[in-house]
């Protein structure tokens, strides 16, 4: 369907004149701050400069900036620079608290942002054995029956696995689920997929309509691994409002870039950094280990 329609457009493009163009993008570099707070980790941040799209140079780190972190409007520390553009504070943020960050660097406008650490997802689960692999009857297949006991207030859940292959750990979202609270913003129809669709680059659940309730769903088709290759955990990440928007726009942007059709609405990468770019967000993660 899309192919036929696109063919019509291609026909027009073929009879058209096409030329490569270059634009002179003029851009005044600004501070680009990336910092995601997690109650399980020390505070880390990267600070770099934005640059024009057509710049051939590598992204430049920012040295010697003063990055101040506040908890509930009280200063809790200044991040120390560990290497070019990387900054760290040996403190762990706490669930439910509000954090502000300000960044000052000579020659650039100061930037600032706010986030509130969300609550760690409250997860109950059971393993349901469904059979065994066709090619190895010693290895069972199973579903994970999951319950999220949602707490009152907006929550944005992202689900991803981590797995190990030949002692190298990988991670990412790779499972489709089928539930009424699944956010279908990144659904792509695939008749051969288990539920008729795949989810591009992420699995997001929203508690809209389920606030304060139990959200039950199944993550299907896990199987027991071998010593060389196995899934070691599934992670439930509750993202703050800003981090959540940032993730969605990254995925939508990528879908647009890789789509067959050129007519997706453009996507602006979300940033909550005042006077700058990047993201200052937070999350809390609950992990189920296999």
């Amino acid at each position, binding site marked *: *369907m*899309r192919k*036929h*329609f696109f063919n*019509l*457009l291609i026909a*027009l*493009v073929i009879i*058209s*004149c*096409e*030329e*490569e*163009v*270059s*634009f002179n*993008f003029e*851009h005044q570099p600004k501070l680009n701050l*990336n910092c995601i707070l997690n109650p399980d980790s020390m505070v880390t941040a*990267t600070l*770099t400069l*934005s*640059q*024009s799209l057509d710049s051939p140079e590598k*992204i430049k780190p920012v040295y010697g900036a003063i990055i101040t972190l506040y908890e509930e409007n009280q200063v809790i520390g200044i991040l120390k620079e560990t290497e070019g553009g990387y900054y760290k504070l040996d403190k762990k943020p706490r669930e439910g608290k509000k954090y502000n960050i300000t960044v000052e660097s000579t020659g650039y406008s100061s930037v600032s942002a706010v986030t509130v650490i969300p609550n760690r997802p409250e997860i109950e689960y059971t393993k349901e054995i469904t059979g065994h692999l066709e090619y190895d009857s010693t290895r069972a297949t199973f579903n994970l029956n999951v319950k999220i006991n949602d707490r009152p207030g907006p929550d944005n859940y*992202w689900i*991803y*696995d*981590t797995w190990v292959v030949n002692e*190298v750990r*990988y*991670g*990412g979202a790779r499972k489709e689920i089928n539930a009424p609270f699944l956010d*279908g913003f990144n659904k*792509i*129809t695939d008749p051969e997929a288990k539920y008729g*669709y795949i989810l591009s680059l992420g699995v997001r659940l929203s508690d809209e309509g389920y606030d304060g309730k139990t959200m039950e769903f199944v993550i299907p088709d896990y199987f027991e691994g071998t010593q060389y290759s196995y899934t070691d955990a599934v992670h439930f990440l509750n993202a703050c409002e800003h981090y959540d928007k*940032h*993730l969605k*726009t*990254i*995925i*939508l*942007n*990528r879908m*647009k870039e890789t*789509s067959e*059709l*050129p*007519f*997706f*609405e*453009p*996507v*602006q*990468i979300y940033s909550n950094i005042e006077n700058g*770019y*990047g*993201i200052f967000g937070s*999350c809390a993660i609950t992990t189920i280990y296999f």
Partner: protein
Amino acid sequence: MKSFLSVLLLLSAVWLNAQTSHTISGYVSDSKSGERLIGATIINPESGVGTTSNNYGFFSLTQPGGPLELNFSFVGYKTTRKRLELNADTFLTIPLEKGISLEEIQVTARRLNQKNPELSKLSQPEITMQMIESAPVILGERDVLKTIQFLPGIKQGSENTASFNVRGGSADQNLILLDGVPVYNVNHLLGFFSVFNSDAIKNVNLIKGGIPARYGGRLSSVLDISMKEGNLKKSSGVFSISPISGRLTWEAPIKKDTAAYIVSLRRTFLDLPVRAVQKLSGQNGTYGYSFYDFNAKANWIINPKNRVYLSLYTGKDSQFSNTHEGNNKSKYDYNWGNITSVLRWNKVFSPKMFSNFSVYYSRFQHEQFSQSGEQDLNVLFKTNSEMEDISFKIDFDYYIHPKYTLRFGGKLSHMVFNPNIIQVKTIESDVRFNTDNHFTANEFNVYVENALDFDLLKINLGGRLSRYSTQNKSYINFQPRVSAALQIHPMLSLNASYNEMSQHLHLLTNSSLGMPTDLWVASTKNIAPQKARQATFGISSQAGNSLSFGLEGYYKWMDDVVRFDEGVAFLNSKESNWEENVLVGEGKAYGVEFLTQKETGRITGMFSYTLSWSDRKFSELNHGNWFPFKYDRRHDVSVLAEYKFNESYKTTRSISIGFTLQSGNNLSIPDIQTQGILLPGRDYATYNKSWETIRYTYDHPNNFKMPTFHHLDIGYNIVKQKTDNKSITWSFSVYNIYNRMNPWYYYKSGDQVKQVSLFPIIPSVSFTYRW
């Protein structure tokens, strides 16, 4: 006693005077065809009191009894003088002969040739069929929607598309009527041509400021197109051919001076030889594209006070491909089109009261149909989007006094929407998606207009009340409308207007191509109607007999404007409810328009300049800050001119030029790169692709201004009059004479950005035969 008698005498004189006023009413028509003339002027030259004929050619003028002279004028026709003794209400049918009148009367006819004299030329610019016929056009296709884009405040979408934006509004904010029926998709071939066949059109009326209360349903403008009625006197026809299409129009009386009909067909023809070649060459498939428009209309004058009309329009674009390889066959059709039909009844209740009753049906549908299989086509994939509108309308024109006309009426509509219904059928199953998207809505409107003439001051004061109901929710909007013109000098007038509008239909579009994939949706319980308020103020001047100037400023506020959310495309595979994929926000637009026109003489034409701004704001985008609208074009210059050579009866020649220069459209193009963060879990991976760590973004939507758009077109027309009734017209035109490659679209190919331009220098020739 004496005082009492004096008062009595005075009152008697007044009463007697009132008693001796009578009303002349009737119709003004073309003497050769019987076509009613819209906006003809009727003036008592002695008193200067006059009126104009309405949309059906009807006029009514109350004058004191006794000897009376009236002048009947219409642009392009000789003025007819009528002398009569007015002793009673009189009904007349005045035929006007085509021809050249005295310049002064012609200009006077032009000046008064406005059904809304309280509106300036910038709010209601004059559009004549002559302007449409003479404007140089691409590929020889006369097009009313492209001609109006030379007017100030009216901007095209992409180059050469029929979609247009008025005073900072979007394309769906223009109410486009064909014989009073809304037409929802006006685009052929991705918007390069409109659905309107100029051979079948009689009159075009455009209003973009001070919109009177009789019109409603859109925020920015009204384009009211009237079809010809059919020649009541004798049969006649027009045959035209251009590089794109052939057109045939035929009109004839059913019964002379009583009933007539007109049919008009336009069709592309390039697909026919292509199909023939494909079949003859033994290809295992046929592919092609075509479009057509068919207009038909019949009317019957039952008696001088009753007339009925039946109009039909249907048009369709069709892309198809049929292939067969061995036992495998596949068939694909992609088509979209409109059907409109209307039954109207004009009734003259009294010499002062004219009415029109209409029942109409309008439908826009687009459909994709794909079948495949071995031996039989047994796998079906079908998508369908459709909207239907069934309405009943009543309008009254009550000519209470030469200085006061009351217009009132109402409309009741029932609408059905089926956006993006999908069916997948195999031997084993038949599944439909999005059937929940089906819904219906009803709308009820009433309006009243008071047109007051205080000689130097003309006012139109009215209001429109609308009630839109759907899904157990009703939206009630009262829309005040006021416009006024004050003549402060014989050659200078001030104009001002204020109107509020509401619109419950929305066109969700990803581009300005006028693609059928643009989705018409209606307000629901979650999505309120759009609303706008527009204020205008201007000054207009008539310098000499033929030169006019106008300068007008406007400010428009828009609420509840709707657009697709980021990352959405209609043709994506999400197939979810459209309401989940839209954003609701605000808009504002303001600017100044300048227009000068030369209306008589060998050289005629106009020059227009618009300076404007148009912005949008959505809480979910750009941190809720204002950003430029896609069609926020700061400057717009247009020139349209025609030079007529020495005329002889047998041959008339003219040369026309059209020049357009506009600031470019705005696009959202990433122009900044920053370091990004990895998606959750991806920090473990060692195979990170660059897109995961570098982000490309922009500061605000529509950050990039496309290059200035401009082109110059030239046309040359020769009309050879073979006999009184037969003529041949050759039209030669060159579009984009200096071959400016205006960018039409940008796309990324790897790391490169490519510009696509579609319209280089394009010469064309078209031929028209009239008999």
